[in-house]
């Protein structure tokens, strides 16, 4: 069976890179499930929301929306704001997700921060099917999150182990991917702008509302520096060939 060999090879290549997410999502997922439980929602809600929304921070925000007054338009606007960063991920993945067939809608549906960053920076080994690899990274991450949340929802307030700080595994993952990208690229202006503008925006606007201004400023700067940036990229290419 050529097909099942192809699938299992892709699974075995994808699983190791998702292990940090397993640790992070087990912790954050359980925290979310416990939070839902103490907010008065049964495990059915936790399971369905983690399965269908699959955007960690938005699911925490959604608990507040469900406990407040009924305001669907406000809920929509807040969701668009909290999740606007996914627009950047989509633009970044237009090429990478090309030719993935029936898996593509699921890859896009499951493109949370972690799946995006892993799939974007993936060094897929020779001989491993690309679309199955991307699919398993997304599926495993989705599974960890739903499983963690459901376990948290079932255990509820009985959870008493001290894992404070384990959430840093996500920060560490993003930092590692940032460093990997840095080492791969010859031109660093976009990475530097991303960090600088986001930090300035965070200081100016605070944690709850810094993303949209940061995105607008990043887009503006990258657009204004396009000519210079493409010239430098061409020079770097030429330098490599020489």
């Amino acid at each position, binding site marked *: 069976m050529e097909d099942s060999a192809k699938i299992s090879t892709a699974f075995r290549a994808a699983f190791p890179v998702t292990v940090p997410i397993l640790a992070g999502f087990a912790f954050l997922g359980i925290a979310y499930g416990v939070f839902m439980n103490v907010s008065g929602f049964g495990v059915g809600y936790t399971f369905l929301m983690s399965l269908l929304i699959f955007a960690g921070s938005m699911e925490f925000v959604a608990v507040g929306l469900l406990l407040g007054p009924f305001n669907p338009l406000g809920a929509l606007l807040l969701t668009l704001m909290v999740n606007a*960063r996914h627009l950047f991920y989509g633009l970044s993945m237009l090429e990478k997700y090309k030719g993935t067939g029936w898996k593509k809608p699921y890859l896009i549906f499951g493109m949370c921060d972690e799946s995006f960053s892993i799939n974007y920076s993936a060094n897929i080994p020779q001989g491993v099917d690309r679309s199955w690899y991307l699919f398993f990274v997304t599926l495993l991450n989705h599974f960890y999150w739903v499983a963690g949340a459901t376990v948290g929802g079932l255990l509820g307030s009985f959870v008493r182990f001290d894992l404070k700080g384990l959430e840093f595994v996500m920060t560490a993952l993003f930092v590692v991917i940032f460093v990997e990208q840095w080492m791969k690229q010859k031109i660093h202006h976009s990475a530097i702008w991303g960090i600088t503008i986001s930090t300035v925006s965070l200081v100016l606007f605070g944690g709850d509302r810094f993303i949209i201004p940061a995105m607008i400023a990043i887009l503006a700067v990258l657009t204004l520096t396009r000519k210079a940036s493409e010239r430098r990229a061409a020079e770097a290419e030429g330098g490599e060939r020489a």
Partner: protein
Amino acid sequence: MIMTLGQQIAVIAVVVLGTMATRFLPFLLFPPGRPTPAYIQYLGRVLPAAAIGLLVVYSLKDVNILAGSRGLPELVSVAVVVWLHLWKKNMFLSIAAGTILYMLLIRM
């Protein structure tokens, strides 16, 4: 005031819809069949580095540098992750060491 089941379902559906809109929109606007505008291709090349930078800052957004430990555990742990990764280039080592260090630092 507590919502009815129907209202709860409506709110959850709106959140799902809003999230999916942000994920699907670029793919719907620029389908593979048609040539993607050069400007969008350019953004596709340069945005990822900036987006991952944004993600790093986003994951640290709740750090308060004016109170408590003043962000020192985060600063030290991030620096160790960067240094370890530049040195050993081992993803698991960098992430595990950085996280364990952070968990120790916030307990001191």
